[in-house]
């Protein structure tokens, strides 16, 4: 009985005070222990605020035939081979289009990360093509928030066919001009969408009623099915007056992109045989419904002239 009484007294008196002291004094220790458990939370708060730019919205600088918001980075050089076979409805004698075709070769270079230039030649119409692409805004989140990537594309074409001796030929008649804004958003890691209003001006047109100015809006998208493979589609809605000399149709293309290191291979089916804007947008005569479908491919090879240190 006595011992119990002592124990009781012992607990009530000093040890309660001791326990309180222990609790109070261990609070700072507890808070440190908590910090240790959440080191990564603390490291997160330590990291400098970042701007996270959307990269690789498309696999290459073209969605299929039309331009994409992608461009060569500074010091990067690309050689591009684009080919469209004949129409699959051309019959067995033309081996369903594979006997014929048109080709477009282009060399393209990133002057700055935001500025790219290119020089090319298309077999169709023996056309020379020079262009500049300027990045105006990059999609980003974090410090800077931008919903879209916006790029300007400006091109000039020169028709290289032999002069018609029955006409007075001015060099200016051979020229065509393209102005386009490419507005794209990488919606998810897989899905990217692009809308691209375009104005094409031709100094000379086939017939008096034909428009010199062609207005059009492009719609394009790509969906990544694996890290190195994507499906893509592209359509240009073209505004035309009813008086054109020839009936033209809007270009629609579907394709697959396959990327292997420094190469991107694109395979597509399209109703347009031309690969320059004044051809595939302004004067495309192919119709999907009639079987004017062309198999085609683009191959790119990238080289790095110099990199960033």
């Amino acid at each position, binding site marked *: 009985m006595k011992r119990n009484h002592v124990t009781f007294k012992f607990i009530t008196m*000093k040890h309660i*005070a*001791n326990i309180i*002291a*222990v609790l109070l*004094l*261990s609070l*700072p*220790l507890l808070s*440190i222990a908590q910090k*240790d458990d959440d*080191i*990564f939370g*603390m*490291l*997160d708060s*330590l*990291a*400098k605020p*970042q701007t*996270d730019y959307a*990269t*690789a919205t498309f696999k290459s600088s073209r969605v299929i035939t039309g331009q994409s918001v992608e461009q060569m*980075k*500074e*010091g*990067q050089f690309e050689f591009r081979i684009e080919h469209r076979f004949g129409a699959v409805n051309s019959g067995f004698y033309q081996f369903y289009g594979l006997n014929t075709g048109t080709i477009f070769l282009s060399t393209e270079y*990133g002057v700055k*990360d935001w500025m790219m230039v290119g020089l090319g030649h298309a077999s169709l119409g023996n056309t020379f093509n020079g262009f500049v692409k300027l990045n105006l805004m990059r999609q980003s989140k974090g410090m800077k928030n931008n919903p879209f990537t916006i790029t300007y594309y400006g091109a000039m074409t020169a028709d290289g066919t032999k002069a018609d001796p029955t006409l007075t030929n001015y060099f200016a008649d051979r020229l065509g001009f393209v102005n386009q804004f490419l507005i794209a958003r990488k919606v998810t*890691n897989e899905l990217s969408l692009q809308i691209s209003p375009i104005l094409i001006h031709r100094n000379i047109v086939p017939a008096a009623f034909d428009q010199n100015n062609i207005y059009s809006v492009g719609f394009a998208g790509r969906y990544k099915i694996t*890290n*190195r493979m994507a499906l893509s589609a592209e359509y240009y809605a073209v505004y035309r007056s009813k008086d054109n000399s020839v009936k033209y149709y809007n270009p629609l293309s579907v394709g697959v992109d396959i*990327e*292997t*290191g*420094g190469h991107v291979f694109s395979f597509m089916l399209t109703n347009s045989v031309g690969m320059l804007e004044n051809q595939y947008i302004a004067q495309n005569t192919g119709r999907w419904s009639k079987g004017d479908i062309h198999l085609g491919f683009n191959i790119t090879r*990238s080289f*790095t002239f110099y*990199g*960033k*240190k």
Partner: protein
Amino acid sequence: MKRIIASTVILMTMSLAGFSQPKYLSRAGHIWFYSKTPMETIEAHNNQVACFLDASKGTIAFEVLNKSFKFERALMEEHFNENYVESAKFPKATFKGQITNLKDINFTKDGIYNAIIEGDLSIHGVTKHITQKGTIEVAKGKIIAKAKFGVKPEDYNIIIPALVKEKIANPLDVSVDITFDPMK
């Protein structure tokens, strides 16, 4: 009453000792990797590594944003983020571990000490327990931690396609160089 005072004093000293245990931070740690094959040399640097070191417990941790790795070639950087570490899905690589030979390191005396570090390295959503050797240099109140080790991409579920296999060294050399400042 004496007991209360005595225990209070002891506890306070312990508590204060707990506060004065040095903790160190860095927000500009340097991590880089290097791959050299006859086909290609790949080198990428990250100078924005956030790091923490608790000298009393030997806890060491760092966190790195994959997108902050800078490559000489823009296309490599894009492929690194898009195809290999998949930065959109796995934005960070992290490490948290312990210095196992803490008794051999005197954080109050200048010098270079060998350290054995054991812990969990997470890359591409895969965590591996690793043990590596490194050095801890104590110099005028700063701590410089250095280590160099190999990382095999397949250990972290990073698939290198057969087509580019001979262009990428396996294992890749990863180097860590962090200068810590005392935590305020």
